């Protein structure tokens, strides 16, 4: 007797776009002898991909023949072998099992998907030659350490982009010691709707300009009336370029500024005056150009001209340029004696390309614990704001964010009014308690956590959620220890 059955996937089905090929159909022969069955973990991932195959055959097989790529050659005769896939593609796996009664075979189509190995810090796959060249130039510039004679300062926090974006690799975040301060100008209480600025820690090297950020701002002649109010821990840049391709309509669809559904979670869009916000801890920037030129100026004192609308416009590859937004900014200038702009338009374009084309973190395949954690993530309400996937014109963006700003309560409030949020009927223009839902892809590699790095671990970070996040946090705290562990396992796999 020879039956061909189409069975449900054996291999663990993962809620991951990257694993959509996992667990294809199977052809199974059933005659005298054992009934073949196996599982494979993981069933997808970047090359080199090492897969553990587990024999689950019934009726006591005594011999196994594995063909990991269905090329007709037996690759292993072990019962539970491992195999490392080094070439890209989707692979069918054949297992023949034998005992004294006979033998049977199973052929599972598309059992394993080995993908391009995109490591943290790598560029997006599929760039054109020109894009890749610009990315590579941008990566070098990102590491360039500016000196005062090249325009560093007169006030600065850092000498290179790498200073604050290097952990665990170039383009990432930074440890606590790279924190910087933001300030607001004194004058009214509460500090809402006040202009806020990055506070530079250093100014030149003269004895009069050595700044301290604690025990009072002794000497900031440039900022009379400024008080420091918030620290910032730098954020990783992996994958952020994809946010440019999430449409305004998609972002708007998730807003609920008046909490119409009464779930305690509202969420509104921010705006930088020229376009809907996507970048920064408060979604205060609409495009990567501003997200690049602003820290160059605010953190390093490097002046630049806007690319669009300026002489010597640098055009980016059609289709890769951000969504239409008018140039929200003007040339920056300083008084350090170095002629402005201190960086060339092509260099700005290359720095933008580096940020834009940094590939997103790749999630690991979810084991059983991570799958349980994934379910908890949704059931306790994390996914209400940390929306796993947003559609974009470049495919799904699995960043676990809605790109909206949410009121996170008084304990997290930093009183910094950035951007121009969507006006609501019930609330003030800006509360200073709102933060963008931080993307969670690669979260295990971006410690410390929260806007100022106050949380050392993911667990601590969850327990510090307040305001609109309070409900989800309380449900997290009410979970069994094992359930919390599963949730953390899930987050660490992202």
């Amino acid at each position, binding site marked *: 007797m020879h039956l061909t059955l189409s069975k449900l996937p054996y291999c663990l089905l993962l809620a991951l776009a990257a694993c959509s090929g996992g667990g294809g159909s199977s052809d199974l022969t059933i005659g005298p002898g054992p009934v073949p069955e196996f599982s494979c973990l993981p069933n997808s991932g970047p090359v080199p991909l090492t897969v553990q195959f587990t024999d689950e055959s019934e009726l006591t097989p005594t011999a196994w023949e594995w063909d990991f790529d269905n090329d007709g050659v037996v690759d292993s005769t072990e019962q539970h072998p491992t195999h490392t896939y080094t070439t890209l593609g989707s692979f069918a796996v054949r297992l023949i099992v034998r005992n004294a009664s006979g033998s049977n075979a199973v052929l599972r189509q598309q059992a394993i998907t080995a993908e391009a190995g995109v490591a943290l810090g790598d560029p997006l796959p599929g760039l054109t030659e020109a894009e890749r060249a610009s990315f590579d130039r941008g990566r070098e510039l990102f590491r360039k350490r500016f000196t005062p004679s090249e325009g560093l300062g007169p006030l600065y926090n850092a*000498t290179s982009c790498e200073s604050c974006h290097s952990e665990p690799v170039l383009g990432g975040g930074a440890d606590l010691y790279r924190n910087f301060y933001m300030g607001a100008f004194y004058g009214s209480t509460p500090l809402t709707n006040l202009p806020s600025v990055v506070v530079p*820690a250093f100014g030149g090297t003269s*004895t009069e300009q050595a700044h301290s950020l604690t025990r009072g701002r002794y000497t900031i002649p440039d900022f009379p009336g400024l008080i420091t109010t918030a620290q910032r821990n730098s954020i990783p840049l992996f994958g952020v370029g994809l946010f440019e391709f999430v449409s305004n309509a998609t972002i708007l669809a998730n807003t609920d500024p008046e909490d119409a559904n009464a779930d305690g979670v509202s969420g509104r869009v921010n705006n930088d005056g020229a376009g809907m916000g996507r970048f920064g801890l408060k979604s205060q920037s609409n495009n990567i150009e501003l997200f690049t030129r602003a820290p160059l100026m605010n953190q390093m004192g490097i002046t630049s001209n806007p690319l669009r609308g300026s002489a010597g416009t640098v055009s980016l590859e059609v289709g890769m340029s951000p969504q239409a937004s008018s140039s929200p900014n003007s040339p920056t200038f300083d008084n350090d004696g170095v002629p402005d702009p201190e960086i060339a338009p092509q260099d700005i374009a290359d720095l933008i390309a580096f940020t834009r084309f940094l590939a997103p973190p790749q999630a690991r395949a979810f084991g059983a614990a991570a799958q349980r954690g994934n379910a908890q993530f949704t059931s306790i309400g994390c996914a209400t704001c940390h929306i796993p996937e947003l559609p974009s014109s470049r495919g799904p963006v699995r960043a676990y964010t809605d790109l909206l700003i949410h009121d996170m309560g008084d304990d997290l409030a930093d009183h910094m009014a950035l951007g121009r949020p969507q006006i609501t009927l019930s609330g003030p223009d800006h509360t200073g308690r709102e933060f963008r839902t931080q993307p969670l892809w690669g979260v295990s590699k971006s410690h410390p956590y929260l806007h100022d790095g106050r949380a050392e671990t993911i667990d601590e970070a969850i327990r510090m959620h307040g305001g609109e996040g309070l409900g989800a946090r309380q449900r997290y705290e009410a979970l069994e220890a094992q359930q919390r562990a599963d949730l953390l396992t899930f987050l660490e796999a992202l």
Partner: protein
Amino acid sequence: MRSSLHLLSLLAFAATAVAQGAVEDDPRFVRGRALFDRAFHRAQGLGSPDYNGDSCRACHQDPRLGGSGALELNVSRFGRDSGGSGPFTNLAGGQTSSKFRLPQVGGREEYPVPPSHPDVFEQRQPPALFGIGLIETIQGPTITANEDTTDANGDGIFGVARRINMNGTIEIGRYGWKAQIALTRDFVHDALAEELGITTPDEGRHLGIRTDVDAVADPEIASSTIDDLDFFLQGLPAPQRGGSTDPRVAIGEALFTSVGCAKCHKPSLQGQNGPVPLYSNLLLHNVMPRGFRGMAEPGAGVGLYRTPPLWGIKDTAPYLHDGRAETLEQAIAMHSGEASAVTSAYVALSAQDKQSLLLFLKDL
């Protein structure tokens, strides 16, 4: 990562003495290196609650673990000198000011302005730590032998050792921009306190801090941990000469002496296990311009700095105590005070000779 570290240690093993390889394989060295690289946070006692860095590596990282730091890793000192017209005085809280305070949990960051405002500041670059174990083998009398407290030889160059009163005994300082530290173990205590806000056990040498105001029980680090950090520092390999065969390097080396650089940047000092080629006399000199304002300490007045060792200098830009010099040429040109005559002799060199001197320095 593991394999590249292993490769690095293999290369180091091949490049240096066998004994060095043995040090780097020592579990104490391995533990000390991990501690040096470890980022501390609230739960481990980071902050007093103030701090400059959350790890040793936060300041000592260029070009690799144990090295120096970029300009933005400077730390600040403060005091008062009445606009430069009065004597330097310390203000409450000492000279060290921290860049950060641990983020508050609840409530916004606010810092009270102290009643008496400082009016003079000084930035300090993190010094590279390579070879400091060898410097510890240089005994006090070796250092004081080069003193010239009255400029008896009339060359314009003085030179005084930093004397530290340690429980009634005078010790000679070896480390720090003002030679304020005698032993690497003292440095560990001092840096943990001043830069990380970590309390350390009382080991009888009154360095570091015993208590702070965070919620972590004091001391926040054990003597055994200090043992490991100290062992790591002691074992950090000294910078190796580049070994260039460019004939200009030898010309530059001769110029280094004939111009007068070597008067203070002594090519080597005798250590207990042989000569230590550090290019320093470990004495304090004033090479700052007239009118310089900065910190004063007992035994090290305003403008007095230890001759910085020059070994490995190619990897430690920017230069001078606050990083004011971007390049070696700038650093040389900024020497004045006791070094004025030497600087003039350097300036008078031909472009070719200056280039040779530079190549020599970059080979150290």
